[in-house]
């Protein structure tokens, strides 16, 4: 540990160090020289497309995929066309860009997923060069074609390739170029040698980096930083220009004294970098060039691949992998020789303490005197995060923990958090897993969420580890364990060597009823892989019947889909299945299916009522539902304008009502037809305008027209109750003030509605004279009322007294005014005697 600074190299104020990440597990004898290589950032996988050893027309290149630690994931001979470029997407998918502009997408395990084309014109002109880049929109692809035109797709998941404008004077490919994402726009920066252009959607602009003198020569290599903020340009005179990628400001120009174009050039920065640098690689030399004039040089034995990271550069060679990065300030503070920083003292104190030396106390005292113990603990914790070596992490954390003991009110959060994160990081860094993430790259909200980390483990099929981590970090099941299980299950259903039964059982045992795992999704996957039976088995585990329906439909298990939809209670879903079935099946089968599902059947009837009246009829017919069929004809008859059709519909209704043994309705409908015919006849003969009126209204109208005979006929034919007819006639005669007729009518026979009605109706027409004629005819019970109605108080009093009815006397009294004193006295007396009795 004393030698922790041994691999530190000063660059200006700062130090750079190389940390060994892995001895590569792979076995590549002839180096990386002949291969197309793509290594994804954030410790992503490595893909190699290796040319065959002996070139012959029959031999094919080999595509190999490794984890970052060099563990073989897959390898297979490349059978498609010539590949120009390899690249990785943000979700660990491999893009293989072919000469003809076709881009093939493979997953980590080398199974082909899909392909797309960068445009028809590319097939002719061929891709000269291509780059895969990452933008806020996702993963993009840029190509330059043989006709010197660029085509750009900013997001391959939402493919919209754009052809960029022509670059003036460009022949073939430019000497170098990069893709920039700025202000939510993707552009290409390219050098044609003497000139530098920015190419965007609409224009091609000649630009000039500030502070780069024309004597520096033409630009032969360029590189943009991880964040797209910084740009490095290398000229053929060996000058390296660094500055902002918007070309507004220069950082520095350094003369590397190297005239050859570097093989690779990558920015090496970290957040809050003191001394950002650019790493350049030639055949046997690696040079780290900072802003100052004093670059660090490392010899390299064979050709390496540089992978720019958020906080450094990974250097992958055929034998090992190193991380080159600027030493974080806090690590400098602690480990710099003779550092007096509080963290350094605390580390020392703890070391002495472990040796049981009293010096520990001295160191501690010193920190405490400066009131820096809190700071010291923080430094140790932070530095532990940045160290890759677990022994160093441990000693720093132990020191921090030791220091913490002497503090009160010190929040343990950062300490606990860091321990937890390091534990996860160390686990995924393991060579077997091979995700060499740094603490800076660890999901802290902005660059990568924990879900992404879990997903990446899942893509690599490290399910147990992923679940372990989810549980350890207490990620809610919904986002954590369940997601892993879902992936696992989707993968499991693809195992061809297992029986449907075995897989379904295995899935059920593992997944159980974990929240958020949808069996229908898993089943959908199984179906996709052509395992319909398995899919159906899996669907059985789905608790949400609604979810089962779409897939069942897709698998053409429509009967099952229908019963599941009914089970869910969601009528909209039932409708959906029904309308699907309607299109899929012939009518007979369709009706039969519905018949077995009463709920669906009644919903479909509802639908038909609104949309397809004719189908409704067929449905009732099929079910021999005569009652409903009759109702159907009745309502249809009201939509019919022509009387003949109306009558024939009603006749059908009558027949059906008869079949349904609904005698009443049959009779009523027959009556209706009779009435309609009668109305038409009279309308034709007399223009009475009766059609559509009710029986009662018809009779009213007839009476109003003076057609008493016809009214009488209806009364008899339709067996109208006497009471109602008398009311009708009474009202009609009174309205027309045919008092003589009325009197005649009253004497025609005994009134079934009594005679009070006659009194009332006359009074309503303000004919007291006529009213009085009927008073004498009313029944004794109504006498008082009748007299009162015609305001004959005397008569009323007489009647009331005669009947010795106390309540009636009261009613009369209430009507008396002061002028009727005599009457009042008489009534009062009579009432008194009535009460006595």
């Amino acid at each position, binding site marked *: 540990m004393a030698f922790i600074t041994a691999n530190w190299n000063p660059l200006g104020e700062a130090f750079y160090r190389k940390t060994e990440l892995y001895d590569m597990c792979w076995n590549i004898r002839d180096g990386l020289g002949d291969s197309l290589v793509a290594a994804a950032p954030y410790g992503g996988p490595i893909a190699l497309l290796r040319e065959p050893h002996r070139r012959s027309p029959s031999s094919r290149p080999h595509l190999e995929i490794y984890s970052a630690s060099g563990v073989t994931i897959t390898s297979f001979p490349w059978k498609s066309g010539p590949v120009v470029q390899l690249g990785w997407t943000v979700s660990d998918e491999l893009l293989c860009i072919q000469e003809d502009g076709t881009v093939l997408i493979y997953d980590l395990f080398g199974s082909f997923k899909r392909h797309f084309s960068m445009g028809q014109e590319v097939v002719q002109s061929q891709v000269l060069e291509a780059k895969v880049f990452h933008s806020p929109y996702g993963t993009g692809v840029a190509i330059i074609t043989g006709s010197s035109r660029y085509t750009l797709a900013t997001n391959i998941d939402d493919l919209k390739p754009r052809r960029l404008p022509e670059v003036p004077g460009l022949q073939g490919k430019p000497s170098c170029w990069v893709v920039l994402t700025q202000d939510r726009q993707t552009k290409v920066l390219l050098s044609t040698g003497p000139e530098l252009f920015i190419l965007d959607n609409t224009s091609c602009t000649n630009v000039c980096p500030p502070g780069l003198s024309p004597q520096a020569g033409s630009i032969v290599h360029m590189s943009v930083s991880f964040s797209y903020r910084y740009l490095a340009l290398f000229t053929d005179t060996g000058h390296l220009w660094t500055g902002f990628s918007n070309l507004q400001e220069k950082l520095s120009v350094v003369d590397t004294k190297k005239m050859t174009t570097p093989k690779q050039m990558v920015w090496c920065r970290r957040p809050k970098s003191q001394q950002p640098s650019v790493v350049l690689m030639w055949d046997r030399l690696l040079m780290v060039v900072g802003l100052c004039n004093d670059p660090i040089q490392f010899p390299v034995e064979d050709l390496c691949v540089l992978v720019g990271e958020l906080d450094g550069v990974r250097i992958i060679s055929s034998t090992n992998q190193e991380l080159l990065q600027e030493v974080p300030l806090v690590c400098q503070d602690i480990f710099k020789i003779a550092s007096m920083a509080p963290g350094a003292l605390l580390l020392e104190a703890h070391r002495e303490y472990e040796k049981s030396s009293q010096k520990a106390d001295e160191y501690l005292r010193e920190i405490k005197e400066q009131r820096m113990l809190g700071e010291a603990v923080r430094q140790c914790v932070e530095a532990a995060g940045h160290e890759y070596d677990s022994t160093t992490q441990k000693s720093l954390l132990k020191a921090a923990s030791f220091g913490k003991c002497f503090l009160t009110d010190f929040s343990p959060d950062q300490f606990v958090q860091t321990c937890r994160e390091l534990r996860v990081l160390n686990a995924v860094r393991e060579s077997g897993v091979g995700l060499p993430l740094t603490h800076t790259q660890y999901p802290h909200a902005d660059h990568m969420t924990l879900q992404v980390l879990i997903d990446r483990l899942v893509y690599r099929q490290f399910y147990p580890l992923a679940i372990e981590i989810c549980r350890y970090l207490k990620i809610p099941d919904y986002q954590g364990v369940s997601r892993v299980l879902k992936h696992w299950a989707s993968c499991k259903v693809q195992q061809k060597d297992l029986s449907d039964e075995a897989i379904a059982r295995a899935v059920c045992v593992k997944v159980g009823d974990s929240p958020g795992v949808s069996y229908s999704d898993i089943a959908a996957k199984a179906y996709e892989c052509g395992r319909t039976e398995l899919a159906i088995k899996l669907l059985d585990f789905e608790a949400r019947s609604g979810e089962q329906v779409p897939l069942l439909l897709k698998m053409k298990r429509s009967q099952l889909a229908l019963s599941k939809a009914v089970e*869910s*209670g969601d009528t909209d879903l039932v409708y959906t299945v029904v309308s699907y079935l309607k299109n899929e099946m012939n009518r007979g089968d369709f009706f039969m299916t519905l018949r077995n599902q009463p709920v669906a059947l009644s919903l479909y009837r509802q639908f038909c009522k609104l949309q397809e009246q004719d189908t409704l009829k067929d449905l009732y017919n099929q079910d021999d539902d005569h009652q409903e069929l009759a109702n159907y004809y009745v309502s249809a008859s009201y939509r019919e304008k022509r009387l003949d059709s109306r009558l024939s519909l009603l006749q059908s209704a009558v027949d059906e009502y008869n079949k349904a043994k609904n005698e009443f309705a049959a009779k*009523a409908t027959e009556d209706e037809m009779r009435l309609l015919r009668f109305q038409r006849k009279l309308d034709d003969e007399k223009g009475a305008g009766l059609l559509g009126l009710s029986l009662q209204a018809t009779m009213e109208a007839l009476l109003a027209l003076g057609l008493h005979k016809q009214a009488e006929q209806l009364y008899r034919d339709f067996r109208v109750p006497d009471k109602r007819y008398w009311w009708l006639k009474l009202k009609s005669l009174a309205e027309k003030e045919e008092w003589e007729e009325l009197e005649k009518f009253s004497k025609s026979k005994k009134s079934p509605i009594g005679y009070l009605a006659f009194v009332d109706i006359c009074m309503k027409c303000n004919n007291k004279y006529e009213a009085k004629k009927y008073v004498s005819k009313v029944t004794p019970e109504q006498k008082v009322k009748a007299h009162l109605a015609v305001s004959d108080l005397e008569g009323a009093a007489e009647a009331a007294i005669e009947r010795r009815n106390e309540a009636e006397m009261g009613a009369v009294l209430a009507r008396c005014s002061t002028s009727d004193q005599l009457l009042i006295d008489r009534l009062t007396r009579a009432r008194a005697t009535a009460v006595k009795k």
Partner: protein
Amino acid sequence: MAAHLSYGRVNLNILREAARKELREFLDKCAGSKAIVWDDYLTGPFGLIAQYSLLKEHEVEKMFTLKGSKLPPADVKNIIFFVRPRLELMDIIAENVFSEDKSHSSRDFHILFVPRRSLLCEQRLKEQGVLGSFINIDEYILDLIPYDGDLLSMEYESAFRECYLENDQTSLYHTAKGLMTLQALYGTIPQIYGKGDCARHVANMMLRMKREFSGSQNQILPVFDTLLLLDRNVDLLTPLATQLTYEGLIDEIYGITNGYVKLPPEKFAQKKQGEGSKDLPTEPKKLQLNSAEELYAEIRDKNFNAVGAALSKKAKIISAAFEERHNAKTVGEIKQFVSQLPHMQAARSSLANHTSIAELIKDITTSEAFFDNLTVEQEFMTGVDTDKVNTYIEDCIAQKDPLIKILRLVCMQSVCNNGLKQKVLDYYKREILQTYGYEHILTLNNLEKGGLLKPQTSSRNNYPTIRKTLKLWMEDANEQNPNDISYVYSGYAPLSIRLTQVLARPGWRSIEEVLKMLPGPHFEERQQLPAGLHKKRQQGENRTTLVFFLGGVTYAEIAALRFLSQMEDGGMEYIIATTKLINGTTWIKSLMDRPESQAP
């Protein structure tokens, strides 16, 4: 703005706020100025969730009613359709979209389905070729709308008809969903009771839905102790009877829609403006009715015969309060008086309004016709002569009284007699068909299907047993100071509420016999609560029951439940939920076919 929702035992404002939040989120999804095209049916219920001001804050500049052909011009970026998922509405929307002027087609279209999006409708839009025109297709889950501090309604008009006539259980699915939403906000309801087929179906769906969400446990302390699901067809009698509470009568006579009533304007003319008789307003007077109004909260549930006394007592208090000003001597006293003035003035105008309404109602309730009608109703309910043709009904038909009135009476007779003798039934039916037209044969058929009208089967009439066991008729109902729920119908205690009351104490086991006579199964379910959420009840703390009426509830029934909540020794408070607030008239209307051709 909706403070009255939060006064009750259960703060229903939480539900309203949740609904408002969701609405805001949707509106913000459509960036820029907007115009809303309304399915007319939704405007009323929406008014209870959000006023125009909220919409305006979210850049809603115009509102239109959904109708065919072209949309009115509006210089807005977004056109949003707020619609129920119905196929006929989809066709109108498609027409709207098609006739949009393509030349300046910068307007974005969105659809918000209320209460739930529908694959069927989307399919229809697709067939019409407009589905692609919509940027957002979303759903606004508005099942249960808070109407008052203790009242939720889905305002699903056709629920009863769909369930009992058409065997379409869509409304029950929405009910179950609504209850799940409610439980998400107010905690799992540990006990579920129910009576009736629909109740059973809803409970089944709820239990299933709970299983589907088995992973995420609800960690909210339950607010409701019990849920009681009641089918309307368990108690067909109550809605047929004329409600006699103040609120019930307002609804019977003028109709309350979405918390508002429209009244004839004459009585509300500003008297101050002097003689100007030509100034008489011709627009109906629109009043909002809810418990936010102190006086209304006090009198709404009283029997109408007790309202007069309450109003005059209130009048005295108010004028006494105004008299106080003469006693106010010191500056401080005057200041205090003045500070109370706005409140007093509001009380005075509220008093004036309700006095006018009470007068309007009194004109009707004191009429002979009203009295005769009520007498017959009460005869039926007490079982007098329910087995023969009723003369009053006959006369009413002869006088061509409104059909709905006739239907209410005939159905009531049928229900109170457990069906009518075939001869009697046929006689009524013939009378109705001959007088009001043969087309009503369909309506009569519907009523028979719904069980409101039926021929007597061989089994004997069990209504008297039910009436006696449940004490549905109370001879000495006290209208002024009620001691029993029967006051809401001046003697008749609503069956549905008796069931609720018995459930609370002594429990349904005591009335097994009667429950068996009523249609549909009765059941009890328990929902497991996560450990730690079991309520520790304080001594004397009331339990809370949510009573859900599937197929509608009347104001009188609500009044009866409120009365039970207020009983000192009741030990139970009730929150009421329903598919729709109904009265006999609106209910029968919803069951009619071709009601448009029916004479008023």
